[in-house]
């Protein structure tokens, strides 16, 4: 496991906002030389802290006005293979994330749709027809924010 200092934390925070910045520009803001900045980024990548890069799009401006989180319970536990369910659910293009969880539900899905009737189509035709699907609970996302609290310490 890797230990971060305050500068690593600032660097990571800057990179989550904009990973396109050059090491030189980033370094100037943090009071580091370009090679030192580059070395730190490299170290964070090698340790797996920087897991990858993600293109951030405005879903609403692209016509996806509705995001719904679904809690899914499998109906026939043990009889349905989890792999089959996971493979089928991951193949649905509108399903953005699939998390296996313990508790009230077995899976948590993030689903994006153009509007409520488009969501209903995805739910009825794609989700409810998945192998082994049981109870489904839907919550419509109103707002979300990601925080980087542990990097501030």
């Amino acid at each position, binding site marked *: *496991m890797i230990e971060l200092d305050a500068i690593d934390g600032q660097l990571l925070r800057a990179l989550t906002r904009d990973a396109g910045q050059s090491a030189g520009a980033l370094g100037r803001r943090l009071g580091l030389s370009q090679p030192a900045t580059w070395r730190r980024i490299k170290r964070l990548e090698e340790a797996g802290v*920087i897991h990858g*890069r993600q293109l951030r*799009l405005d879903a609403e401006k692209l016509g996806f006005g509705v995001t719904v989180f679904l809690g899914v319970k499998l109906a026939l536990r043990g009889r349905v293979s989890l792999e089959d369910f996971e493979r089928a659910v991951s193949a649905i293009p509108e399903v953005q*994330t699939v998390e296996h*969880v*313990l*508790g009230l539900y077995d899976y948590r899905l993030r689903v994006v749709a153009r509007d409520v009737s488009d969501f209903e189509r995805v739910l009825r035709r794609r989700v409810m027809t998945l192998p082994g699907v049981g109870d489904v609970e839907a919550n*419509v996302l109103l707002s979300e*924010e990601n925080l980087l609290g542990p990097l501030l310490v």
Partner: protein
Amino acid sequence: MLDEDDRKLLRYWQAEPTLSQGELAERAGMTTGRATRRITRMQELGVVKGVGVVIDWGALGYAVEVSLRVTLDKTQGNAFDVFLKEAREVPEVIEVQTFLGRVDVRLSIIARDMAHYQQIYRSRILTLPHISEIEALMHVARIKTSEGLPL
């Protein structure tokens, strides 16, 4: 607002966020100039917000992630605002979402281990204002994480 060429660029870019504009143009079968103009326009329109790194908290020693689904006491007029303001101040809360449905708010909490989680839960979460009910879901595995849009 966007045409098929724009969406084509976004599809390739979404799949490989580290591509340069020249590489994107090549994949989409257009000149770099044309791709750059389209990308710049989409950035100006706010369709493209940018590329950011994704942090793996596990690699930083946070082995536990729990989703807390919170129902608030809505008889208190400002329950949402007060609760959210205080929840944001807990460093281990890395995600805050509000919903229309059975759940009002969901918090994602990370912790080094179960003992650490227990400590955060008791000292920082149960003390948050206006909670009427909490349910916890413990993360076991991420099966799909793309968050890409079906363009």
